[in-house]
């Protein structure tokens, strides 16, 4: 899937990812390929991204939003 993480300071991540795990208001979720379209409010915590090469990257999130579009496009707005 293609993952983009935007913050007001700029783009934090833009590229391929295998997996994204992050805390939301209704509980922690993991997004994989072909996830159904979803909009969710994220909670303070750590977003874990497994990038195209299987390496894990971490992003701290205070608040924000997760949007999963069809066609395996994932967008995170983070503060």
């Amino acid at each position: 899937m293609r993952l983009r993480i935007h913050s007001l300071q700029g783009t934090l991540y833009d590229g391929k990812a295998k997996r994204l795990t992050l805390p939301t208001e209704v509980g922690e979720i993991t997004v994989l390929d072909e996830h159904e379209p979803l909009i969710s409010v994220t909670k303070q915590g750590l977003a874990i991204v497994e990038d195209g090469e299987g390496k894990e990257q971490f992003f701290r999130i205070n608040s924000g939003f997760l949007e999963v579009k069809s066609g395996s496009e994932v967008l995170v707005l983070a503060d």
Partner: protein
Amino acid sequence: MASLTHLKKRLSGIKSINQITAAMELVAATKMRKAQEVALGTRSYAWSALELLSHIIKSLEEHAPEGLSNIPLLMKREIKKTAIVVVTSDKGLVGSFNSSVLRRLEKFLKEETNPSNWGNVTFITIGQKGADYVRKRGGTLYRTFTNYSDLARLDEISELTSVIVNGYLDGTWDEVLVFSANFISALRQEAIMRELLPMDFKRVKNSIREVVPETGRYSDLKREMLESSEGRPFDYVIEPSPRIALEKLLPHLLRIQVYTIMLEANASEHSARRVAMKNASDNAGELINNLTLLYNRSRQELITKELTEITSTVAAINPTGN
């Protein structure tokens, strides 16, 4: 004829002023570019947030239209009290930057308010100059923020935004207006009034679009933004609920709006300062030329005078010439 030492002193004074203004011009130019870059850096976030907003609203319209009503930040209510946010600079030497914003504000106050409801207007000022103005004018200062002027920081913006939002939610004011400079290009800024609260989607969209300047270095980004703005809507699952998502998203959008307004004011301030300093440097250069000319002329006159004295002395001592 002024004495040579006096001229020399003046000349060196003007030269050092010239150096200072030239340096300030360069610094202002760099800061302006920096403010522009930061403002442009927010655009992918801002556009995604707008897109998200349109998806949530669409979903609400389709499935639960009643969820769109009674959202405090969107609701228009009877306007009894107004909060006015004035964005100015802390320091001077910015040409007409502050005075044009304050003139715009003055015009608004004359037209829209009268002394009887003057008490219903509360001011929030950013920058020393605006605070001084409100105090002199006898207005009610709710809060004043200073040290924003180089480049607004995100935590400062969050604080400002929460002051504005909280005052609106607890009824301290019923609308929020912002007076600030809008950055059009490096040579042109204009003072404008924006309505911040209650929120209006079209206005939010416009102010985010304004981030990209009309002309100059970054203007071609405008097209790119317009093209990417239309996404295909999907049938989203929205958690926890569309209404909660919307209520969470609105303050974020407001913060983006405040942030871009502040960054535009920053860019405007720096470019106004750059122009003012350029004029000052040019004037100093002209003065230096004139003074140098005067100095050389005086020096030559002095030499001529001395030579005349010498030759006349020689002639007096030895009148026959041999």
